[in-house]
Structure formats: structure tokens, C-alpha cells
């Protein structure tokens, strides 16, 4: 976490307020996730069975406020004060993986009632069993990363060696 390590990783020297701002943003988001009830898998599962539609208000409300933030920043502001980077929206290219990933995530979310951010917050409200879920997420992320690195290596290798 030293500055030297950052530089060797290719990132530029950070503004001294960079990490404090990340902490502040995380604290606010974590508080909001706990306050909203999203850190409780039961509340999410109630939404998925139409017993309590509150999750729509959380995700929808957050999306609307984020939409306003992105609009204001990309329209009226130039560059971010701490990094000098231009403001952009969150755009990702559409491909088959977006659909496949959505379906796999949907099955997992429907089984467990947890998603990454809410799971971190769940640990904060003392919900120790959520460690099962967080461990599962790391294993899942590892499996897909291992598999995708493999197929990339195989694709490169098959150009020269055909086995």
C-alpha cells in the first residue's frame, strides 16, 4: 500500500485526500446499505417473492440520484479535482458474457439473497454467517478468473501447438 508499490503498479502518485475520500464514500454507502435493510438477506428474498418491494426503492432511488450526479458532472464539470481525470458515465460493451453473467448472478442472488456490496455491509451489522457467502463469492470470482485465464492461454497456445 506504499506509494512506491503504487508507482510500480502503473498508477500515478495519488492526491493525499484520495484514500480519505474513498473511506468517506464507503462509510456513507455502508451505512445506507445497513439502514435500508439490504444487508439482511431476508429483506432481499422478500422482494424476490413480492412480499416487500422495498428493494426497488433502494436500487431505483440510488440509480436516479446517481443519474443526476453523472449528468451534472459530465455536463457542467470538467475534471475531477483529486485525479485530474474527466468525468464519464458507466458504459460497458454489450456481448454474450453480459447476458450469461446476468443469468448466473440471478440464480446466485435468488438462492442466497446476497450481492457483493450488501454482503460487506452485512458483516458490519454483525451477521457472521455472511462469511459463508463472502467466501463463496471469492471462490466464484477465482473460478471464473482461473477459467478465463486458461482459455486465453489455450487459445494462444493452439496457434503454435495443436494438441
Amino acid at each position, binding site marked *: 500500500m506504499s506509494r512506491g508499490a503504487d508507482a510500480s503498479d502503473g498508477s500515478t502518485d495519488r492526491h493525499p485526500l484520495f484514500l480519505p475520500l474513498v473511506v468517506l464514500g464507503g462509510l456513507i454507502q455502508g451505512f445506507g446499505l445497513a439502514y435500508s435493510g439490504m444487508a439482511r438477506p*431476508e429483506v432481499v428474498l422478500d422482494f424476490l417473492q413480492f412480499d416487500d418491494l422495498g428493494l426497488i426503492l433502494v436500487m431505483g432511488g440510488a440509480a436516479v440520484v446517481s443519474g443526476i450526479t453523472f449528468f451534472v458532472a459530465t455536463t457542467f464539470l470538467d475534471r*475531477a479535482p483529486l485525479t485530474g481525470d474527466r468525468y464519464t458515465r458507466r458504459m460497458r460493451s454489450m456481448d454474450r458474457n453480459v447476458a450469461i453473467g446476468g443469468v448466473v448472478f440471478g440464480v446466485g442472488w435468488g438462492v442466497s439473497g446476497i450481492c457483493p456490496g450488501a454482503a460487506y455491509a452485512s458483516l458490519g451489522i454483525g451477521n457472521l454467517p455472511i462469511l459463508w457467502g463472502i467466501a463463496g463469492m471469492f471462490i466464484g470470482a477465482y473460478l471464473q478468473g482461473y477459467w478465463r485465464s486458461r482459455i486465453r492461454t489455450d487459445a494462444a497456445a493452439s496457434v503454435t501447438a495443436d494438441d
Partner: protein
Amino acid sequence: MIEGALEAAMAFFPRGTTQYLVGGVMVAAGIAVIYLGTAIIPGNSTFLETTLSYVSKVSRFNRPSYLASRDWRVVFALSIVAGAALWGLVLDPGPFVTRVQPWRLFGGGVLVGIGTRIGKGCTAGHGVCGLGSASVTSLVNVVLFVGVAIVTATVVAALGVTP
């Protein structure tokens, strides 16, 4: 007439609506604080992969952009835990322990880990920031994961699994 409709709508919110709206705005506020300062749109599932780079040599986890952001993503996730604890353990004391069974948390977590990483985002990245950016890619992903999760949770409940 309007009162009747409102009353009917409130049947879908047995826990009320205030905490959902306030929590959702706070989730967006946490994102906005970091975004306005740095132009970074902080998702929550990338943390899983960037953190794996500390313990794995798999090439996917060791991409330059991951190595450059892995430290602040750890700080961000820990801050989410701390922010949630501020509400769940200090202001509204009494730790919450889920009754959702460990196998659901773990098995669902594995699929969440795989799906969010293949699909390029999670509830925060696609559901809040992507929808807030009016991204069609995110809309496709969100419709799929919410729809599949509703079906999955309904099937799991129909099989008699509670909670």
C-alpha cells in the same frame, strides 16, 4: 380513489418505505462522493478479483488496472463494513444474524462471484451506476438478473426451503 390506490400500493411495503428511500439515496451519495472527487465509479464486485491478486498469480487478477486499484478497493470494502457497523452496532444496536441457511449463502455466493465477474458488474455497478448512466448493457444485465432471481427464489421457496 387515489387514497385507495395508495393503500393498495402500501400493501407491497409492509416495512414502510422511508428506510428504503433514505438508504438508497445514501448508497448513491457514497458513490457520488468518490465520483465527484476522483471521476472513479466504484463498483463492489471488482474488489473480489483485485483482492485475489494478493494471493494468486492467475493473469486475469494481475492486470495493471487491477494492481493499481486493489489497495483502495480493499479500503473501500472495509469502509462499507465500518459504515454498516456504525448503523447496525452503534446507532441501532443489536447484531443481526441471518436465518438463511449457510449452504444457500455459500452456494449462492459462488454463483454471485462467477456471475458478477463474467457479467461485468453487480447490483451496484450495473443496477445503480449502469442504470444511472442509461446504459443499455446494464439494463439487459439487470433485467436478466432480477428476473432470474425472482424465478429462482420462488422455486427454492416452493421446494419448501425456509429460510
